[in-house]
């Protein structure tokens, strides 16, 4: 099965190379972007089938043993990796096939498709790597690919600034992450993940775990867009819509959650860090949900909703619910990819991102309406859709948290239920504004525009395909501990079905969350009923404008970081040009002045030179004689 994992990593990489080599040949790019990704999906399925519920299997070879730091190239397959691998390749395949028609008219389709393949390969490298350094390589390749893909429409200024922002913000987290990995590897004496996990579970083997866990957390927060490193994700919406689906569902943001789940024993040694994570998750989930409720751009609504949902996963990790976090990650991957791709279909047809330009689309776009309804139900967490079960498993983990997780459990539980209200509210608002009410063009007396087809058939097939797991994946939770035996234990060991974590919804939290969802959705519905043309976001009252602007986080960032950095840079520039350069210029000018004085003596009179020479000889001779005598 390690061979299959290797194939799964190599195929998209090969596809990327071949796509890039093909230049602008569209047919070549189409084939080489989709076929390897689909084959990689089959390969990850094979990995999962071959792995079953087994423990860990590592196949690695040492790279250039030269003493000191040892790097192992190879694959490490655990149940966790197999499940995430399927998610990654499934969503990537959907995105690639969807892009065939969605990006048909794009001039840079080949570059775009090649970068998606490279992105997929990098994520699979993170998932299946046997070594932390190799994992870091995949991690950084993803960062670069996201930069290029977000900046795909580089003619637009917001795409350029969005890509730079994404790169810089995630890099802010990646630098501590690098230090964390090095510290962890040095403490454990090896960078192999199996050795690191073994050291973490052996008492007294690791020191400074709080520091290491905090450093690693920074990287995960940056990649998974958690407060205070979340601000890149809404701006990343400047990229093409399928990219948003890829980044938000399966790859980039999943990497942060995955790494925490992978190195979970290390985080368990640092309870303070996990409590911090709970607080961060609570802030992020409520704040992002509030911001989502106020946004007017549907892609930004979905972006903030991603940030908020990722915070659920982080919250689950903070209260010891690793299985619940991964379950929510997988479900969220399915329904968020669906939501983005469906939103892409609608945006293409309507030609706008603004919520006010939509309305009454349910008859014009029945497939998008149906699939998006499924996706939004899953997002809100209505039974029996997948999101209900995974959200309940997160809330259940928070409810049952005790011991060192007790405080974190309460924080996550309360924030989680508040967020359910908000999630229901913004989903309801988006659903009503998009599919019900009057279509803006119609109400302004415009004759009904021609709607020959909703979207190309392949896009609709993809939406339907994604709607199936979005609707049904949740039932895994009912089958007592199956999911936990799939993903395996903290160290990748086998988990027997008796000891497995049960993801069954707990009655108390389920009822509260359901009531919360009905409250949020109902409020918005009431407001909308009164004024179908208005914006239900008015229920936020005075909070609306700050929420629309992301609570002025960008402004605060600009004030605290950008301005102060610029001021500091100005100071450094002043010191450089006016102080340090003064010495350099002074050295030149001084030498010239002294030289100008000395050259006065060069009169050209040979006899003068000789006289001076003779004087010198005599002086030297006298000194020498004085020393000898």
């Amino acid at each position, binding site marked *: 099965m390690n061979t299959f994992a290797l194939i799964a990593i190599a195929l998209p990489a090969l596809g990327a190379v071949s796509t890039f080599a093909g230049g602008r040949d569209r047919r070549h790019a189409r084939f080489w972007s989709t076929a390897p990704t689909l084959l990689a999906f089959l390969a990850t399925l094979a990995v999962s089938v071959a792995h079953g519920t087994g423990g860990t299997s590592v196949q690695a070879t040492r790279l250039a043993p030269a003493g000191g730091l040892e790097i192992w190239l190879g694959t490490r397959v655990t149940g966790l990796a197999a499940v995430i691998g399927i998610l990654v390749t499934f969503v990537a395949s959907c995105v690639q096939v969807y892009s065939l028609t969605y990006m048909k008219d794009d001039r840079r389709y080949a570059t775009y498709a090649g970068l998606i393949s490279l992105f997929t390969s990098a994520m699979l490298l993170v998932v299946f790597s046997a070594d932390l350094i190799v994992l870091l390589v995949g991690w950084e390749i993803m960062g670069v690919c996201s930069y290029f893909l977000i900046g795909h429409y580089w003619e637009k200024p917001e795409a350029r600034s969005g890509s730079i922002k994404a790169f810089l913000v995630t890099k802010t987290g990646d630098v501590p992450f690098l230090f964390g990995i090095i510290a962890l590897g040095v403490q454990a004496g090896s960078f192999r993940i199996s050795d690191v996990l073994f050291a973490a579970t052996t008492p007294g083997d690791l020191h400074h775990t709080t520091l290491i866990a905090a450093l690693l957390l920074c990287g995960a927060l940056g990649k998974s867009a958690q407060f205070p490193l979340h601000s890149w994700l809404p701006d990343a919406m400047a990229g093409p819509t399928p990219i948003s689906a890829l980044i938000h569902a399966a790859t980039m943001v999943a990497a942060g959650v995955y790494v925490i789940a992978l190195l979970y024993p290390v985080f368990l040694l640092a309870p303070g860090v996990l409590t911090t994570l709970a607080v961060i998750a609570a802030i992020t989930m409520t704040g992002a949900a509030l911001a989502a409720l106020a946004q007017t751009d549907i892609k930004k609504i979905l972006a903030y909703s991603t940030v908020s949902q990722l915070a659920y996963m982080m919250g689950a990790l903070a209260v010891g619910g690793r299985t619940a976090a991964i379950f929510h990650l997988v479900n969220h991957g399915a329904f968020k990819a669906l939501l983005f791709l469906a939103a892409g279909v609608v945006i293409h047809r309507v030609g706008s991102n603004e919520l006010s330009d939509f309305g009454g689309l349910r008859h014009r776009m029945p497939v998008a309406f149906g699939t998006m309804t499924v996706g939004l139900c899953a997002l809100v967490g209505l039974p029996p859709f997948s999101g209900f079960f995974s959200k309940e498993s997160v809330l259940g983990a928070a409810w049952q948290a005790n011991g060192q997780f007790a405080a974190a459990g309460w924080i996550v539980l309360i924030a989680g239920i508040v967020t359910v209200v908000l999630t229901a509210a913004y989903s309801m608002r988006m659903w009503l504004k998009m599919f019900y009410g009057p279509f803006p063009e119609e109400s302004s007396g415009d004759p009904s525009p021609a709607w020959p087809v909703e979207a190309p058939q392949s896009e609709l097939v993809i939406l339907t395909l994604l709607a199936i797991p979005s609707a049904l994946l949740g039932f895994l939770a009912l089958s007592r501990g199956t999911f936990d035996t799939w993903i395996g234990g903290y160290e990748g060991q086998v988990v027997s079905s008796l000891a497995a974590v049960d993801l069954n919804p707990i009655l108390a939290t389920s009822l509260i969350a359901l009531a919360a969802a009905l409250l949020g959705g109902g409020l918005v519905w009431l407001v909308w009923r009164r004024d179908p043309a208005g914006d239900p976001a008015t229920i936020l009252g005075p909070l609306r404008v700050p929420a629309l602007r992301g609570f002025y986080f960008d402004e605060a960032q600009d004030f605290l970081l950008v301005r102060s950095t610029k001021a500091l840079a100005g100071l450094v520039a002043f010191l450089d040009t006016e102080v340090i350069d003064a010495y350099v210029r002074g050295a030149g000018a001084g030498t*010239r002045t002294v030289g*100008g004085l000395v*050259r*006065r003596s*060069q*009169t*050209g*009179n*040979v*006899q003068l030179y*000789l*006289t001076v020479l*003779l004087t010198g000889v005599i002086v030297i001779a006298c000194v020498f004689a004085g020393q000898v005598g």
Partner: protein
Amino acid sequence: MHAVYPLVLGALLFAIGLYGVLARRNAITVLMAIELLLNAVTINLVAFGSIIRDALNIGQVFTLFIITIAAAETGLGLAIVLLIFRQKGTAGIDEQRTLAEPARLPDLSKLADRSSEPSPSARTAP
């Protein structure tokens, strides 16, 4: 014979030659003064060779070499003086100041331009 006489003679000749080299203006006189300097040295060489009773007579051998080279050197020197006289109409040594530094500093930027100048003809032009 006492050794001090040749040494004093050599010192006197050297002093006269030094004066001639450093103080006289006529190039031919300077050349003659250089000859005096060389001869002062040869006298010293012969005198010391005799004082230390050198069996190999290195001092005398050196003297022969110096006389030979001095003859060649004078020939060369006279030829140069002749050429200078023909060109400038004077053999005054203190008037040969072609190699003196110019009164003002050359402009550095112009120096840079000159170094990047590709054509060799510009360099040979007067």
